[in-house]
């Protein structure tokens, strides 16, 4: 009888309901699901628990893991091989190549993707834009011009929460927009020292400094959803935040395209954050059977659709019908397809898709230090290079 203990940090409201869908499917296929939710700090607490469990020798069956962390755990020799399921289900055909890459460890499949979050979204209050006669910006200059206008009109141009991961989110959107996909790849994925110290990077920091001016005084420590509420309430015009922000709008009864607008941040490319489950090496046939069943169900079209409808993200597999999805999701899926083809489908560094924890952390430290002080862009670039070198 398939069994699975699942460690994840989708604990509240819509998230929990989304996972519950998986649990129901798992159960209806004869499996027993043991839930092990640990929320907090974008998974930090869950990772703490995971380490303890692994060291204690009773790792959970499946763990919500993503990005290079999957490969890191693989290197520790604790992940299971689910290639048989992946091959039987033909994952390689239905997943975009770059996303499939994250699920592979040295040529074997070791994780199953759940969804794709797009990070480089900009959200806007439709009424404010209309009232001030502003279009959704498509370049950062336009954005700046719009912001000046809004500021003059007494509206906070950008709703932002001063937590380091939010700073990083804005930063990577700006880096992608100003430098283009290639620059982003070099600087924030390959950590090319030249790119990191380039003039483009200085411009990126300049833009961050400019945007610091568009943020209200009280942004520090603000939760992202409170920032979203500012946009909803008409206190602020824009917010740069991943597609989960949509959930807040919808929960408050707002309609996409009418009350609020969604668009990708200025510039080309697509930053994704793929949630996935990694399968840990476990004892017992029941557990292994559970693991395989779980992997199969996660990537199966049904779950991909239902889950993502709930969660606000889009399916990882490209062959799911999007009729039920809203306009923002449709844009997202479309862009994913086109950027995947054009090679500008890129992993989000801010959400742990591009870099190992210590490297991403080192960059975030500099970004947030710069944003929260009057550090010059040149200094920031220098520190960035040092921090990256020190983080190995």
């Amino acid at each position: 009888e398939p069994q699975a203990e699942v460690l994840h940090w989708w604990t509240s409201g819509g998230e929990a309901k989304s996972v519950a869908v998986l649990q129901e499917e798992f159960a209806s296929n004869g499996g027993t699901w043991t839930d092990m939710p640990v929320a907090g700090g974008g998974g930090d607490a869950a990772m703490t628990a995971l380490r303890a469990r692994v060291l204690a020798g009773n790792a959970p069956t499946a763990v919500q893991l993503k990005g290079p962390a999957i490969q890191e755990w693989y290197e520790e020799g604790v992940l299971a091989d689910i290639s048989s399921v992946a091959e039987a289900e033909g994952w390689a055909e239905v997943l975009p190549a770059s996303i499939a890459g994250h699920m592979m460890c040295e040529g074997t499949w070791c994780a199953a993707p759940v969804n794709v979050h797009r990070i480089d979204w900009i959200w806007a209050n439709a009424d404010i834009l209309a009232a001030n006669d502003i279009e959704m910006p498509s370049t950062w200059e336009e954005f700046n011009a719009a912001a000046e206008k809004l500021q003059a009109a007494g509206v906070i141009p950008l709703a932002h929460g001063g937590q380091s991961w939010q700073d990083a989110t804005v930063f990577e959107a700006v880096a992608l927009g100003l430098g283009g996909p290639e620059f982003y790849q070099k600087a924030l994925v390959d950590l090319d020292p030249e790119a990191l110290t380039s003039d483009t990077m200085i411009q990126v920091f300049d833009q961050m400094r400019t945007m610091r001016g568009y943020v209200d005084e009280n942004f520090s420590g603000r939760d992202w959803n409170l920032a979203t509420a500012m946009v909803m309430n008409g206190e602020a015009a824009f917010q740069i935040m991943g597609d989960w922000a949509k959930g807040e709008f919808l929960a408050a009864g707002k309609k996409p395209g009418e009350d609020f607008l969604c668009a990708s941040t200025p510039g080309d490319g697509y930053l994704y954050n793929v949630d996935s489950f990694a399968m840990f090496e476990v004892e017992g046939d029941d557990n292994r059977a559970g693991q395989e069943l779980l992997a199969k169900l996660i990537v199966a079209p049904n779950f991909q659709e239902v889950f993502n409808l709930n969660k606000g993200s889009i399916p990882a597999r490209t062959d799911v019908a999007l009729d039920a999805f809203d306009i923002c999701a449709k844009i997202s899926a479309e862009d994913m397809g086109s950027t995947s083809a054009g090679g500008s489908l890129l992993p989000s560094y801010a959400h742990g898709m591009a870099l190992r924890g210590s490297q991403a952390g080192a960059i975030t430290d500099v970004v947030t230090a710069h944003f929260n002080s009057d550090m010059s862009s040149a200094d920031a670039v220098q520190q960035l290079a040092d921090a990256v070198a020190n983080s190995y």
Partner: protein
Amino acid sequence: MSEWLENHLPKVVLAPSFIAVLIFVYGFIGWTAWVSLTRSKLLPKYEIHGFIQYERLFDSPRWDTAINNLYIFGALFIVIAMVLGLLLAILLDQKIRVEGAIRTIYLYPMALSMIVTGTAWKWILNPGLGIESMVQGWGFPNFEFDWLVNPDYAIYTIVLAAIWQSSGFVMALFLAGLRSVDGEIIKAAQVDGIPTWRIYTAIIIPSMAPIFLSAFIVLAHLAIKSFDLVIALTGGGPGYATDLPATYMYAMAFSRGDIGQAASSAMIMMLVVFAIVVPYLYSELRAKND
């Protein structure tokens, strides 16, 4: 045999605790020391690589900030909590009618975990939501209280909340101390014509030295271990302006998968603890021995 057991029972009783402490405290410290010399990342590895982790640690501006913050936070927190605790204890010692209720109010923060109260503090201190906007709403538009969002001052909000949580406990310690001062000494001072405030400053407070020591130790250990508080209130921000060694270590170990780095920072923390606790123990046990 039973004679032997009877004679050695005290040692036998203490032995399990002693062994547990040896393993679970000192063994683990040793383990940490070992790991701090390795390149452990996601999980501990045991291959020694020298002092590289310490070099990285001392190169890191974030660690500098964390250590500086520990000094600022530690000093302010300990001093203010003691002064406030003492002041409250003295005020409460004036035969207050509703002493029990007030005492409970001052003491209850100790009962709540910071995971919870941190959010409330975050709102209260947030300029746009809390005190600042409230006071401005009362008609003082120039009132400013924006420490939380100011990187130079944010650490002081941590101090504020930490004091809120611990000063009641310190108050209880001091109140207990005041209650055990010999009443005749105070009467003697009154007859001697010594004004009340001088009785406190010159006679009672100096005689409570052991309690100051206890309070200091409790507060110092809270300061060094402060973790929940920072996570809940500022998350280390703005930027990493309110990072403390404990949060630094946690971040390294559990969100960045850099266990070697975390171990080296833990060792430095433990050295700081050692520097505080050992003199205390020394004086404490020497005094009790004679």
